[in-house]
């Protein structure tokens, strides 16, 4: 319990830091010196608080989705961006923009989640044809599938002049987050809580079909539930902040290293580390090239790939 409390404290400190880092002058002093309707307080409420909440919500949901995907695929390299889920969600949003540009947000979300779900289900179906030991083939097939879907999406986007939308979904960036433009991410939190409630089922599913059936669970039902959670979370994140690379891959693996894969035990940590890493990368992105910003997609690309290399190359690496 104590380590978990410390973890929460670190994330809180990062969150508070995130509130006060940026081009506009927002500090305790400027807040106290000015009134409720003045600049600093408005920047804090309209931009900084939403941005910080978005970072925490997205980081948490994306990292936990990675854990779920790894249990469902029974593979350490599986996460929404290595199995085609992200690309399929993008294609889904694109399809709505082309076919029904005026569709409401919930409709867009349902369609994109549906695309993500279908693609991920196809991926798991392909996996069933592979021997379980084919660890490295799994992400290769996923990336291949994602590549094919991405090619289709790019073609459509090019034809319909939607390349800009596609690009915004592809690169995680929190600088555009304002009040009213991040609230969808609360769905991600709800699904993360659901994943925690159902944690034991996902651990059992991670043992494989035979163990799951032996323990009296409906394997298909557990996998379907997991896929639905992962698909909706991915769609929500893609449309609000854009894809966050490596998070779902690196965070669950780091946590697994010390705590193992009992989902009940790991989810709180995966959520915390996910939120902390995203906060830290976003804050760093705001500072490194001040007063300009480096998008979090780029920051995490660098930090995440470094961490991933560490996981692969450390002594006694058991990833593969």
């Amino acid at each position, binding site marked *: 319990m104590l380590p978990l409390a410390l973890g929460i404290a670190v994330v809180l400190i990062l969150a508070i830091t995130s509130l006060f880092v940026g081009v506009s002058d927002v500090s305790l002093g400027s807040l106290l010196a000015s009134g409720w309707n003045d600049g600093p307080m408005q920047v804090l409420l309209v931009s900084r608080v939403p941005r910080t909440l978005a970072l925490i919500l997205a980081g948490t949901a994306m990292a936990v989705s990675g854990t779920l995907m790894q249990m469902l695929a029974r593979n350490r390299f599986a996460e929404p961006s290595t199995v085609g889920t992200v690309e399929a969600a993008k294609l889904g949003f694109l399809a709505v923009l082309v076919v029904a540009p005026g569709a409401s947000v919930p409709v867009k979300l349902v369609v994109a989640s549906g695309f993500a779900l279908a693609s991920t289900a196809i991926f798991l179906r392909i996996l069933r044809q592979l021997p379980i030991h084919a660890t490295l083939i799994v992400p290769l097939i996923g990336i291949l599938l994602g590549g094919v879907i991405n090619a289709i999406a790019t073609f459509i986007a090019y034809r319909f002049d939607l390349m800009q939308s596609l690009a915004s979904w592809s690169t995680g960036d929190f600088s555009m987050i304002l009040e009213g433009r991040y609230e969808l991410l609360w769905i991600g939190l709800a699904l993360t809580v659901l994943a925690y409630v159902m944690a034991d089922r996902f651990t059992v599913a991670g043992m494989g079909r035979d163990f799951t059936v*032996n*323990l009296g*669970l409906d394997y298909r039902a557990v996998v379907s539930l997991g896929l639905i959670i992962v698909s909706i979370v991915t769609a929500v994140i893609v449309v609000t902040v854009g894809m966050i690379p490596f998070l779902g891959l690196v965070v669950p693996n780091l946590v697994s290293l010390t705590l*193992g894969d009992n989902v009940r035990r790991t989810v709180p940590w995966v959520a915390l580390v996910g939120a902390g890493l995203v906060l830290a990368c976003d804050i760093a992105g705001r500072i490194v090239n001040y007063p300009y910003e480096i998008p979090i997609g780029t920051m995490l690309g660098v930090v995440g790939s470094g961490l991933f290399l560490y996981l692969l190359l450390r002594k006694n690496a058991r990833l593969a």
Partner: protein
Amino acid sequence: MIVTTNLTKTYGSAVVVNDVSLKLPRGGVTSIIGSNGAGKSTLLALASRLLPATSGSVTIDGLDVTTTPGDMLARRLSILRQDNHIAARLTIRDLVAFGRYPHSKGRMTADDEKMVSDAIRYLGLEALSDRFLDEISGGQRQRAFVAMVLAQDTDYVLLDEPLNNLDMKHAVSMMKLIRRIADELSKTFVLVLHDINFASIYSDHIVAMREGTVVRQGTPREIVRSDVLNQIFGIDIAIHEIDGHRIGLYYV
């Protein structure tokens, strides 16, 4: 009682289990023997609803395994297949605790905890209980899987080659444990065994399969005989009676 009726499993034109009608009485240890590809493992998987049958049916105490709710069956019957591969990093204690899932649904009571500790102790894994499955040997892992199935505390326990990966010492203690639990807790074990001598010494009942059908069944005294084993395995095995046990000499 486990009853199979005209149970058949085919893959394309290959018939793996062919029209097997079998009654396995409650209580005691039943061993299924036979050559590779005789259909032993498939029969076990069909009986435990891990595989759907092509035709025929299986009932456990009158409950059809294909229509009975999974969690209800999981409290009566457990199955451990051979070649289990768990990629998830779980500690032995976590794994064995999941054996209680059909009863606890994740909320472990003191009784559940005790059963988990007992199962770990029966298989001599106390010292390793906090180690991860990928940090122990194949034999230790096999014992951990069996501990999980024992923690499930079902009337029927189906084990496909439980002696896989075990050295002599652990193989013998595994068979003694199975025998003891069958006698003291009146549970029913159905084992797939490759070593006819273990089957001979520790079983009450032996079922012999060949090419998907049951060719013989009976007590060890009836089955462990040169002529019968020749019919099952197609090789000559001399049988010697040593200390009251019928031992087949098949090395030469």
